Structure formats: structure tokens, C-alpha cells
């Protein structure tokens, strides 16, 4: 008995040592366009995010041991792909801003830093105070509306008159790169909720098709049934000097389509975004949905849906 145990343990030890030779490379290339922010904000990001989300990865000795190393390497590869602070300034200023809001959202939703990472790297945890610091920083960048902004009012008026003259009639149905077709009927669906996005100065109405509306009525939304479709319409905010905000120019309509099998790769939901009244499909290729699901994933317990429906 003892002999067998010793033999097995030695075999496992040899395997373990042998495994150490299989090491994917983690390259720390120079940060040419590093993230810029006030020192207290940047310090939080460096401590909690940079290991996986920058080219300045610092590995502890225990990160270097296979199989832990494999997980670490995979996290870093995936992390750098979705956000790399070392390439921050390569993003357009508007994209930098929306990325910052997304980062704070991911942290406040508890999705980042990854739980599996902070369990081992305790000092990467972000405290409540630090989260407040980050929130205050992004809030200082929130879209500030100019009251009676003539440029916005004119754009809205122009678009409205074109729409009334039916100049936006779409002859060919636009199709997103993942095959989702534009659905012109969204405006006749039921409103599920509205939202005001003070981060980017837009306002939205979220519509649900018949299946969604029935699911709300009968309380069957966890999970939402196959065939559910949401449409989220966004407009510019147009504000007057008394703080009254109306919908300005139409920006985009986004769809979420529930089909457990067809969209299994993106947790059962198909996504699409059509921009401007010309309904130009968003995304260079079908991989654009990675962006969608990355943001929706923290909503896993709500079947990946942000909106809490309002019963009417």
C-alpha cells in the first residue's frame, strides 16, 4: 500500500515538473499610449487592473507555477484584448470616456477585478472608498448639457421634418454582421421602461415585443422566453433653461433577441445596433457581439438584461 502511494506521488511530481516547461509567453511591451488620469485614480487602476489590462504585468512567484500560470496567461491575454491601459490614448477621446464609465460599472457590479484573481491577489481588491473616488472622477466627466443648445435643436428639427416627409424610408432591410435583421416594427411594441444616461447625455425608451410583454404580464422573465425581443431607442437630450429635457435627434436602435440555441455563444441573446435614421449596422464583423456580452455578463442573474420592466 505504502509503495503504491509513494509511486503515485512520485509520478505526479514528475508530471508536475514536466508541465513547467509548457509556458505560453507573456510579453511586456512598452506602454506607448498609457492611461492618463489624476494620480489617485491612476494608482487604483495600476494596483487593481494593470496586471491583466496593460503591458506592465507584474507576476508574483506563485503566478509563475503551472498550472496557475496557464490561467494567469489566459486571463492576461483575454484582459489585454478587451481593455489595455497601455494603449489607452490610441482610443478616440469619446471612446476613452465611455470606456471609463464601463470600467466603473464593471467594478461597481462586482464583475471586476475577477473574483478568482482577488482571492489570490488580495491587494487588488477595490475598497468602497476607492470606488467612490472612481465614481467622482467619471462623474466629473459626465455630459454637461448646454441649455437651449441651438446646434442640437437645429439637428433635431431638421431630422424631425425629414422624418415627417418620410425621407427615411428604408428600401432594403439592414442586416447586422451577425445576421440580425433590423425590425422596423419596434415602435409599435410596448414600452418596458425608459432610462436617462447622464454619462453620455442620451435618453432611451426600451420596447418589448408581444412575447416580452406577455412574459412581463405573467412574471416569466427569469429566464426570458425564446422569441423575446427588446428594442432600445436612444436620442440626444435637448434641454431648456428650466431643466426640461426632450428627445432630440435619433441616435440608434439596439436589439436583443432571445434564442437559447441560435445564440448559445452569447449566453442565449443575439445583439444588434443600427445607427442614425439610415440604420447603419454597427460592427466590423460578427465579433462585435463580444463587446455586447462583456458589458451584459455581470447581469447574469437577471438573464443578462439591464432593464427592470415596469408593469403598466
Amino acid at each position: 500500500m505504502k509503495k503504491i502511494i509513494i509511486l503515485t506521488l512520485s509520478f505526479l511530481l514528475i508530471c508536475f515538473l514536466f508541465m513547467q516547461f509548457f509556458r505560453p509567453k507573456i510579453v511586456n511591451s512598452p506602454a506607448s499610449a498609457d492611461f492618463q488620469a489624476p494620480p489617485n485614480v491612476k494608482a487604483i487602476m495600476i494596483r487593481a487592473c494593470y496586471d491583466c489590462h496593460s503591458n506592465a504585468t507584474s507576476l508574483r512567484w506563485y503566478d509563475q507555477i503551472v498550472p496557475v500560470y496557464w490561467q494567469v496567461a489566459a486571463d492576461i491575454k483575454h484582459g489585454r484584448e478587451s481593455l489595455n491601459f497601455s494603449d489607452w490614448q490610441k482610443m478616440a477621446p469619446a471612446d476613452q470616456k465611455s470606456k471609463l464609465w464601463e470600467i466603473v460599472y464593471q467594478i461597481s457590479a462586482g464583475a471586476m477585478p475577477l473574483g478568482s484573481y482577488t482571492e489570490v491577489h488580495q491587494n487588488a481588491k477595490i475598497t468602497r472608498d476607492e470606488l467612490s473616488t472612481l465614481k467622482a472622477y467619471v462623474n466629473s466627466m459626465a455630459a454637461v448639457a448646454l441649455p437651449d443648445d441651438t446646434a442640437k435643436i437645429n439637428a433635431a428639427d431638421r431630422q424631425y421634418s425629414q422624418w415627417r416627409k418620410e425621407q427615411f424610408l428604408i428600401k432594403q432591410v439592414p442586416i447586422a454582421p451577425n445576421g440580425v435583421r433590423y425590425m422596423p416594427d419596434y415602435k409599435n411594441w410596448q414600452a418596458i421602461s425608459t432610462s436617462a444616461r447622464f454619462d453620455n447625455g442620451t435618453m432611451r425608451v426600451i420596447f418589448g415585443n408581444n412575447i416580452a410583454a406577455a412574459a412581463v404580464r405573467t412574471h416569466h422573465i427569469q429566464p426570458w422566453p425564446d422569441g423575446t425581443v427588446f428594442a432600445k431607442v436612444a436620442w440626444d437630450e435637448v434641454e431648456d433653461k428650466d431643466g426640461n429635457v426632450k428627445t432630440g435627434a435619433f441616435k440608434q436602435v439596439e436589439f436583443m433577441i432571445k434564442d437559447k440555441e441560435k445564440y448559445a455563444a452569447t449566453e442565449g441573446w443575439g445583439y444588434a445596433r443600427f445607427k442614425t435614421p439610415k440604420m447603419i449596422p454597427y460592427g466590423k464583423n460578427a465579433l462585435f457581439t463580444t463587446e455586447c456580452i462583456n458589458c451584459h455578463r455581470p447581469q447574469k442573474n437577471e438573464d443578462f438584461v439591464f432593464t427592470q420592466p415596469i408593469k403598466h
Partner: protein
Amino acid sequence: MRNIIYILFGGIFILSSCQSGSKNIELFNEQAKLPETFKFDTLGLKVMSSYINKKSGTMSTLYANPFALSNALDGDKSHRAGEVLALVTWKQQADGNYFGADVPGDLQSVEIIKSAIAAKNVLVSYKKYTGKNLDSAPDTLQQEKRITYIFNQRPSVMP
């Protein structure tokens, strides 16, 4: 040997139970809901537009029946019999699911305008309901102003 196995399995059990606590999930926006007895969904209305008032911290959605909606699109300011418009107003609250957004909170009021023919004239009626139970609120002072305001709204662009 047995002790080692116990320690190993015990350790695995303890580690696996270290998952972060599950958060309390609220599937519906209960604060903002309209009372079932009000039967808003039976009015057959569509979304016409939506509003925010930053000073009072409220959000509203304007609904209209297809007839009122197409009249509004035509820019016809004279009222025709058969129009129904409803303005639902909520107090705004921070979106618990998304930092950077506000969503409807406590239900504040529903204002309903209906136009009908009475003695060959078009008669416009205005009714206001307030609070989370939508109790009928007799309002004679603001009526004319509110009717004008609601009739003057133009639909949001939805190509």
C-alpha cells in the same frame, strides 16, 4: 493517510464555499409600476415621446392612440374627436443595474386627455390621477394649461 484525505477534501470544500455572496435580485421595477386595476394596457396606446425634468427630478412618457399620434405627426393643432393621450410621470431614481443611468422610481401621476364629440363640438376632457395607487385628483386650475402642453408635444423621431 485518511487524515490527509480529510484535510484535502475539507480544504476544497472550504475554498469552494468562498464564493461571493449572491446579491438580492429584483426582477421588476416595483416602485414604478402602475396599479393593475388601472388597466393602462387596455387603452391601446403607443409611445409618442419621453421627457426628463432635471429640476424636479422626474421622468415622463407620453403615450397616444394611433389616431392622436398620426394627427400630431401631421402637425394638426386642431383637435379631432377620438384622440387619447396619456402622460405618465415618475420620480427619477438611480439605476441599480447601471452606474451612469437614471430610471423611473416612484409613480407620481397619470394625466389622460380624451377628445370626443358633444353637441357637434369637440370636447376635450382632462383627468389626473396621482400617487402610487393613482387616486383621482380633481384639478381644475391647471387643466387648460396641461391640455395645451400635452397637445403641443411632437412625437420622438422613430424611423
